[in-house]
C-alpha cells in the first residue's frame, strides 16, 4: 500500500525531462529569450561601433550575453514551478532535494548549451571571428564545463529566491559575483578558440581546468546545500 522513497537519480531524470519538455512545448525560450540574446549581441555592436574592437572582444561579449541570458532562464525555470505551486506539491511528496537540484541543473545545462551555440554562430557572422576545427573541440568542452558551474549556481540561488517568495531580485546579486571565475575562464578559453590577438589553442586548455574545478565544486556543494536553502 505505501510508497517508498524514489531514488535521487530517478527524481533528477524525471524533473530534467519534464523541464525540457515544457520548454520545448511552450517555446518561450525560442520565441522570447533567444531574440533577447540576439538583440544583446547586436546592441553590443552599436555600443562598440568598431569592427576591430568587436573582433577583439567577441569572446567576452558572447559570455556576457550567456550570463545575462542565464539569469532569465533560471528565473523561468522556477517560475514554472511556482505558477500553480508545483514546488509545494514536490515538497509534500518528500522528494529528495538533491534529486530536484540535479534535475533542475541538468535541464539548465541543456538550455544554456542551446544558447551558446546560437550566440557563437551570431559572433561568427556579426563580429567576423574565425573558428578552426580544433577551436570547435575546445569551445564545446569549455561550454559544457562552464554550463555545469553556471547551472549549479543558478539552480542554487534561483531556488533560494523562489523559496523566499517575492525576493527573486536577489538572484543577480548572489549569482553574478559568484560566477565571475566562469566568465573569466570561459572568455579566455574562447579567445584561444577564436584565435583573438594571436592566441593559440594551447593557451585555452589551462582555463578548462579552472572551469572543471568550479563545476565540480559547486555541483557537489549545491547538491548538499539546495535542501537547506529551499525548504521551510
Amino acid at each position, binding site marked *: 500500500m505505501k510508497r517508498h522513497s524514489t531514488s535521487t537519480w530517478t527524481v533528477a531524470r524525471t524533473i530534467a525531462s519534464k523541464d525540457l519538455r515544457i520548454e520545448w*512545448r511552450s517555446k518561450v525560450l525560442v520565441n522570447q529569450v533567444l531574440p533577447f540574446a540576439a538583440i544583446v549581441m547586436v546592441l553590443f555592436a552599436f555600443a562598440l561601433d568598431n569592427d576591430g574592437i568587436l573582433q577583439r572582444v567577441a569572446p567576452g561579449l558572447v559570455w556576457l550575453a550567456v550570463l545575462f541570458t542565464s539569469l532569465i532562464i533560471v528565473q523561468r525555470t522556477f517560475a*514554472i514551478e511556482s505558477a500553480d505551486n508545483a514546488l*509545494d506539491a514536490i515538497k509534500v511528496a518528500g522528494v529528495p532535494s538533491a534529486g530536484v537540484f540535479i534535475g533542475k541543473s541538468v535541464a539548465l545545462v541543456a538550455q544554456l548549451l542551446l544558447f551558446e551555440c546560437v550566440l557563437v554562430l551570431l559572433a561568427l557572422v556579426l563580429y567576423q571571428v574565425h573558428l578552426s576545427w580544433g577551436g570547435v573541440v575546445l569551445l564545446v568542452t569549455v561550454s559544457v564545463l562552464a554550463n555545469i558551474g553556471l547551472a549549479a549556481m543558478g539552480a542554487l540561488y534561483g531556488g533560494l529566491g523562489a523559496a523566499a517568495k517575492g525576493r527573486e531580485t536577489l538572484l543577480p546579486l548572489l549569482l553574478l559575483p559568484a560566477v565571475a571565475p566562469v566568465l573569466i575562464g570561459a572568455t579566455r578559453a574562447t579567445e584561444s578558440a577564436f584565435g583573438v590577438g594571436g592566441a593559440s589553442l594551447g593557451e585555452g586548455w589551462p582555463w578548462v581546468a579552472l572551469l572543471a574545478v568550479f563545476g565540480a565544486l559547486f555541483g557537489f556543494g549545491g547538491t548538499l546545500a539546495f535542501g537547506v536553502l529551499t525548504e521551510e
Partner: protein
Amino acid sequence: MSSGDEAVRLRNAVVLLGSFPALAEASLVVERGEIVLISGANGAGKTTLLRLCAGLLPLARGEASVLGFNLATQRKEAQLHVGMLGHANGLYLDLTAQENLQFWGSIVGASSREMALSAQRMGLHSRLLNTPVAKMSAGQRRRTALAILVIRRASLWLLDEPHAGLDAAGRDEIDIILREAATAGATIIVASHELERAGALATRRIEVVGGAVVERGVQ
C-alpha cells in the same frame, strides 16, 4: 513518539507566518481511519493546520507528529505517506493532464495501469488527457490533481476545499473516493465551508477559531 495509532498529534502547536501566529497553541489528536471535517472562518488557521501536517510549515513551538513521525526531525519520512490537495493544484500548465500524471507516476513510482485507472475514475477521458492543463476548466484541473493524489496512495489525506470549482458529478466523485480511501484505512482531514456535503462524510467535526482547535463533536 509513543503511539503509532495516531494519524496526527499536535500539542500546543504554534506556526508563524512572518510574525503572525496563524496557529496559536493548537492541540489535536486524530486517530487512524477517521474522516475529520475542519470548519472555521476565513483566516482562522484551517489552511495553516493542513500545511503544518503536510510538513510545509515549520513548527515555532509545541509538538507535532504525523503517522508516528516527529515533524521536527522526521519530516521527509512523514511526507512519503502524506498527500495534500491545496488551493493550488500543483500542475504544470504547459503539459497535458496525461503528462502531469506521468510525471508524478515516475516521481512516486506508480505503474501505468494505476495511472490509467485513476484517470478513468476522475472522468479524464482520452481527449481530456491530451489537453494542456492551461486550456482546462477549473473543475477539470481539480480532477487531474485528484487523480494525482490518488496515485500517491497516501495514508493521510489532507484536503483544502476539495469541492471548490467542481460540478455536481465531480463532487460526488470526490465523496466516493474519500469513502473508499477511508475504507482502505486512510485517514482524511478535510477543510471545507460546505458543511452539509462534507459533514455527511465526516466521522468527526472540529472547528478552528483564532488559531486554536475547538471540538464540535462526533457525528
